[in-house]
């Protein structure tokens, strides 16, 4: 409900499928490892959700170096889904993650549909996880990844297979969409048709930086994924489009550096947000974003997070 008066204690919770997040501010996959590093710097229980670095069936060493390069108000990364694999994740990372009170959402990736299924099915019997984010949009692997995210039929089929594996009433399945498509609304509708509980967008945009002295791309693999403040207007526009195409929640991300950035996403139609690249430059950003959102809600008379999307003129 929106009142003209200030709201001293707005309801910060967000519902995604069966999951109730304590607040709308999560940390984006790939920018937060498995929580170990930043857990040493602040209490992760304050987060709305922790989206893990991608997990694939087997160990992946990742791409050759250089893997990152800075760009104007952003950066390119080409990590290549480096991760310990599903067994390594369960044995080495999950014990600590499962002690967190904040929802832990495992980002799932693979090269084939069966890869995704193997990860999800293996995790179904594990405790301490709140949901799955299906990474159909990684631009940095030779097979799979982005290929899944650009074909609506594949998006719908993969989503349906994963939802069948999870079962109705199970952990929520959030499909992470790529901005490297002509019409993100079509992909969001495909995910919804496949039974997704939510979509998150945007993943990184494909980019390249060339060293003009060496006359070759800076990144070893040539291209990488662009993130950071430079992509925020793209993300806001895509959340605006996607949230009007589907009735499931849209989780917005891309270049959020402060509360004002996050509020743009919420006004555009996002049900929740993720902070990504800003974790690198200022690790306490998610906490500051949350405080700023709460202050804005109090000031604007918003009693719950879903009121935001009704405000945009």
């Amino acid at each position, binding site marked *: 409900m929106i009142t003209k008066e200030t709201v001293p204690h707005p309801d910060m919770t967000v519902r995604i499928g069966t999951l109730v997040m304590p607040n709308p501010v999560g940390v984006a996959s790939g*920018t937060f490892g498995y929580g170990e*590093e930043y857990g040493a710097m602040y209490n992760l229980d304050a987060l709305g959700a922790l989206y893990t670095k991608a997990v694939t069936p087997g160990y992946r060493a990742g791409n050759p170096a250089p893997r990152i390069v800075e760009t104007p108000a952003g950066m390119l990364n080409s*990590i290549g889904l480096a991760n310990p694999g599903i067994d390594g994740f369960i044995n080495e990372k999950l014990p600590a993650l499962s002690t967190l009170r904040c929802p832990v959402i495992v980002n799932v990736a693979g090269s084939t549909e069966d890869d995704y299924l193997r990860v999800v099915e293996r995790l179904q019997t594990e405790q301490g996880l709140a949901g799955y984010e299906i990474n159909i949009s990684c631009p940095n692997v030779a097979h799979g990844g982005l290929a899944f995210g650009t074909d609506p039929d594949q998006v719908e089929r993969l989503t349906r297979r994963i939802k069948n594996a999870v079962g109705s009433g199970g952990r929520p399945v959030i499909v992470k969409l790529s901005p490297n498509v002509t019409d993100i609304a079509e992909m969001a509708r495909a995910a919804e048709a496949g039974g997704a509980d939510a979509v998150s967008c945007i993943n990184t945009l494909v980019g390249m930086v060339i060293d003009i002295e060496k006359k070759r791309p800076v990144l070893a693999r040539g291209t990488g994924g662009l993130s950071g403040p430079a992509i925020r207007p793209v993300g806001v526009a895509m959340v605006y489009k996607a949230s009007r195409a589907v009735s499931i929640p849209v989780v917005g991300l891309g270049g959020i550096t402060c509360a004002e950035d996050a509020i743009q996403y919420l006004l555009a139609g996002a049900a929740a947000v993720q902070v990504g690249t800003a974790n690198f430059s200022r690790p*306490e950003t998610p906490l500051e974003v949350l405080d700023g959102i709460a202050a804005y809600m109090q000031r604007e008379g918003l009693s719950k997070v879903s009121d935001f999307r009704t405000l945009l003129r």
Partner: protein
Amino acid sequence: MTRFDTTVTTVRQVAPGFIELGFTWPAHLQVPLPGQFFTVKTGGSKYDPVLRRPFAFSSFGSDSTAYSIIQMKGRGTAWLGGRRTGDPLDVMGPLGTAFSAPPASASPVLLAGGVGLGPMLYLMESLVRQAADGACAAPVLAAGFRTASLVPAIGLPAGTVICTDDGSAGFRGTVVDWLAGTATDAPPYLYACGPAPMLAAAAGLARATGARYEASLEQWMACGVGACAGCAVRLVSGDYIKACVDGPVYDGLLVDWESYR
């Protein structure tokens, strides 16, 4: 590891294109160890530049001031060069691994190339103290530069061997050339920081002489704390390590220098 807001105490040019930065180190934090590094948020905007810049410690003062020698190469370091005493500074640290103590039986030899001098100076501070206590032999520092004008105007430790590529000061050649032609009393224990070709050459020499070798690695990095896996360095085994948490100090004989740039 923590992020804190502190104050610049000194910024001074020590050679053309090189500055020494000093800043107040919070008293409650662990004193950084030689080899460890810190990152700085540069620029006045939260939007740009996005990435923090990593730098090695070059000294630590008894007044709890940390120092670093910084080469001004891009927009982040240019911004740092424009700081003045009393300016605020956003720092994260101490980060990464430190150099280990040499065995008592070895002769510590420190090889520095260009801006790699900073961490070697800090290691010298520590090893000179350890040698005075009899914990190791007296350390020797060889510092290489392209030319004499780039030798920084700071108090180099007594006995520092200056090497220049053009022979305009000290030994003509690289620090590795110098070491190859120099006998040490005991098996050398090598520490090195500098450009990749120098670190690779030092690895070759260490391999040939059976010396232990700790190298300080440099790589573009985003988070500096091990979360992003951006600062990968390839090992001869084919695996990757993260320069920020597995390094920057790493066994130089295990690094795949062919892949390193």
